């Protein structure tokens, strides 16, 4: 079984050249970017090994897609332009769903959290990719596309296109793009919000390529001039070791399961930060506490919060 060459592999030289460009231009004050050596090393190491760690599951997921494709509902030709337009929208909506689940359910958050673990936001952050995505099984979300009749290699190529698109938006160098573009597409500004730990920015802007899904499903948040994003996790990591970055939430789930196995469903499928007594912070509790503070003590950002 031959898995087609993916756009990510083809784009790797472009990733390398642009990271170098961003570092050098920022060094000479030509653009806005903050790099930190250890942070960069961690992000790039995660990226380097993420493709390897995905290999065993790539085979399983592709085989599953092939099987479903043999039992497909329709036959969608890979050679037709309309089919590519269709797969673009279908894949992007699937990505939205995947990404939203990756933030709202702990088992998938465990695989995705590493991408958000940097306190920086630059092109190297884009490469801070998961090592445990295959394990978490979210790849199954793309299987229905093959059952519908999209050839598995077409889906795989489109997934790669999405990943490559999402690379360039990990930058502070681009402030805002033309209004029409910001209205339709995911942009550096929208994705900065997604990487921010400010309560009002939590769990917003799940888009892959099109921001329209967030606007449609009520998860859109504009980047506000009066509230600069602070990047990272609600509880930031205290280590640069890629093993801790890749596995810390899995270890956390394991520890919770041992401590209290009867709450297994909550530990695994509850929102990140869920606990039986509600003692920990979840996005929802942090947002609620933040909103309550806005009412109690008006701050400069109050006028917008209304």
């Amino acid at each position: 079984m031959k898995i087609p060459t993916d756009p990510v592999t083809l784009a790797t030289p472009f990733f390398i050249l642009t990271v170098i460009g961003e570092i050098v231009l920022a060094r000479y004050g030509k653009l806005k970017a903050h790099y930190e050596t250890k942070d960069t090393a961690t992000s790039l190491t995660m990226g380097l090994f993420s493709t390897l760690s995905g290999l065993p599951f790539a085979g399983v997921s592709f085989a599953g897609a092939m099987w479903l494709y043999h039992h497909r509902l329709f036959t969608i030709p890979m050679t037709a332009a309309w089919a590519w337009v269709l797969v673009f929208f279908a894949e992007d909506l699937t990505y939205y769903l995947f990404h939203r689940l990756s933030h709202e359910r702990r088992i998938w958050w465990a695989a995705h959290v590493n991408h958000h673990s940097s306190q920086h936001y630059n092109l190297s952050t884009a490469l801070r990719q998961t090592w445990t995505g295959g394990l978490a099984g979210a790849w199954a979300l793309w299987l229905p596309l093959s059952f519908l009749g999209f050839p598995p290699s077409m889906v795989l190529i489109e997934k790669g296109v999405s990943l490559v698109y999402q690379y360039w938006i990990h930058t502070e160098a681009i402030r805002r793009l033309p209004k029409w573009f910001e209205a339709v597409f995911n942009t550096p500004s929208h994705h900065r919000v997604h990487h921010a730990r400010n309560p009002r920015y939590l769990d917003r802007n799940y888009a892959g390529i099109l921001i329209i899904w967030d606007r449609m499903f009520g998860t859109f948040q504009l980047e506000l001039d009066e509230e600069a994003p602070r990047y990272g996790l609600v509880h930031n990591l205290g280590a640069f070791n890629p093993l801790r970055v890749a596995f810390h939430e899995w270890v956390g789930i394991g520890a919770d399961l041992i401590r209290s196995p009867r709450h297994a469903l909550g530990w695994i499928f509850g929102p990140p930060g869920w606990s039986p007594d509600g003692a920990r912070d979840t996005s929802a509790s942090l947002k609620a506490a933040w909103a309550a503070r806005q009412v109690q003590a008006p701050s400069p950002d109050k006028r917008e919060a209304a």
Partner: protein
Amino acid sequence: MHLADLIQLAVSAAAVAAMVGLAAWATRGRGAPPLDEAQARRWLADEFPGARIEGLWIGADGLGALARSGETALVLSRIGDGYVARRIAWDAAASAQFRDGRLSLPLADFGAPRAELRLQAWPPGDLAA
């Protein structure tokens, strides 16, 4: 894994080393300033809004701080040019290992195992109880 994949991995690894080296060159001499009381209070207000600070200890090396708020200890620790904040039981902080001017605070978290603080003495006489 084919030879071509191995070569690709080796080339990518070399590129990673080059990019990290470049980042080190570009940021040398631009480290984060040592943590002082004003900064520590700003971070505490950000991380633990509304918490009443009853005592504050700043590490002599400016790499961390510890605050008491009732029965909890609020810990700040530098990581790179950012920082980590955690809340632990005051008792755990008060009884944490203190050796050679180094307080090692257990954070009970695989993602942030411990924070170290350089202090003159520990625990503080009046607040340790």
